[in-house]
């Protein structure tokens, strides 16, 4: 077996083992590299920053355990900015596990101790609403005809934040974070096309290319581009967290992937070119 054949047939377990090592080294001793903020994240930040205090934001926790490692830190950073700006956040979840993310995100943000925010006045969580786009259109169309109690089961009429939130006209900004294409496109259809609301979208970075046409045409004002966008938001809001920590691990693991691609292709071509 020539050197090139060996190089194209490194056993799976060795490849996997190298990946584990490439994660552990930076995790155990971080490098703390500088961060270059992308334009899409900057637009997300500026859009929220331009809102006057007291504005109502409808935020959809549209992800679950599958998106938590990368969208969780981004969600925390986004909420830090919104609470710091004294915006009023009406949270909902179109993802089945979205309501399970809520306590984890709140533990990361701690709005009461950090910003003196009061549940029911500064923010409220309506919980999971089934139906995907039907839920979005239901909340934006006539919220009170659909929703009567919040996540904890208490009537929303008892909370001052909901006094004048009846539908899209009372909402100044819609923002979502999701791992699902249905949700990413669904909010463009229901929030922007139907009610012309300002809209921000956070998604896994693999989804960014396909929702970029909405950003180019102004239907999305900003995009949080996965863990990279989350790190940008953590940096811009001055709340470093897990996303920035991940940058070092991404440096090592993706350098390893580049080496694999190089080795795989060089060996492939050498074999093909008679280097047997």
């Amino acid at each position, binding site marked *: 077996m020539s050197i090139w054949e060996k190089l194209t047939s490194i056993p*799976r*377990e060795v490849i*996997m083992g190298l990946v*584990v090592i490439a*994660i*552990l080294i930076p*995790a*155990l001793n971080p490098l703390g590299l500088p961060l270059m903020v992308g334009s899409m994240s900057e637009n997300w930040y500026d859009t929220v920053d331009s809102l006057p205090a007291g504005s109502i934001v409808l935020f959809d926790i549209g992800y679950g355990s*599958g*998106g*938590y*490692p*990368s969208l*969780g830190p981004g969600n925390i950073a986004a909420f830090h900015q919104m609470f710091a700006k004294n915006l009023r956040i009406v949270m909902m979840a179109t993802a*089945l*596990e979205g*309501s*399970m993310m809520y306590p984890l995100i709140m533990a990361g943000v701690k709005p009461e101790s950090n910003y003196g925010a009061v549940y029911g006045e500064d923010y409220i969580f309506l*919980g*999971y*609403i*089934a139906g*995907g*786009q*039907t839920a979005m*259109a239901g909340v934006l169309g006539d919220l009170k005809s*659909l*929703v*009567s*109690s919040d996540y904890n*089961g208490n009537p929303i009429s008892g909370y001052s934040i909901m006094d004048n939130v009846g539908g899209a006209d009372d909402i100044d900004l819609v923002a979502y974070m999701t791992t699902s294409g249905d949700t990413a*496109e*669904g909010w*463009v*259809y*229901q929030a*922007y*096309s139907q009610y012309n609301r300002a809209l921000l979208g956070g998604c*896994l*970075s*693999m989804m*960014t*290319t*396909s929702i970029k*046409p*909405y950003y180019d*045409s102004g*239907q999305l004002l900003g995009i949080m*581009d*996965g*863990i*990279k966008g989350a790190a940008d938001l953590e940096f811009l809001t001055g709340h470093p967290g*897990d996303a920035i*920590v*991940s940058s070092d*691990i*991404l440096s090592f*693991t*993706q350098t390893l*992937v580049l080496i694999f691609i190089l080795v795989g292709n060089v060996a492939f071509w050498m074999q093909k070119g008679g280097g047997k």
Partner: protein
Amino acid sequence: MVSLDPQVWIAAFLTIAATSYAFRDNRVFKLAENTFIGVAAGHQIVMGVKNIRDYGWSHLAQGEMIYIVVFLLGVLLYARYSKEYYWLYRYPIAFLVGNGVGISIRAGIHSDFIVQIAQTATPLVASDAMGTINNIITFVGVITALSHFIFTYESVHQGTLGWGPKIGRWMILLALGASFGNTVMTRFGMYQGRVVFLLREWLQII
């Protein structure tokens, strides 16, 4: 000092079990897989019942008797399992499909078609040279990618015109490469979160 919280220990065990599949299929992974299937279906029921309570029963309790019809339609979804009355399940499914398709395509023609054409029908020349070059590349990308998806006019794919779809396929492949690259970051960005959990909350060494 290793964590003493049983919740962290169970989560750590399942994290390792779920990762083990990447190395080799094994019975510990099968346990994790079946746990995953079971808890996911259980969670669906819990959230389903809560939603039925919050968005259905609450209306009934306020005297909106029409919701009895909605509950009946909901139950009919389960008629699909009966040999004789399976067709009854078509009534709720027909309602959901009409609602789902209608709510989506009514806006799809607007934001996925009309708005995108309007965005293309914009000036190619920008204030600076680089801006103009970028506009032209974007414009060529849209037009040739679109021509690649013409299926019933063979003439579009032949002769000089045929260069359109050919270049279109190349532009699409370049864009797909960018998406592939971003997906590498997505996966590693997620898995590092699990390793940080194992090191920070389980073994507590970082």
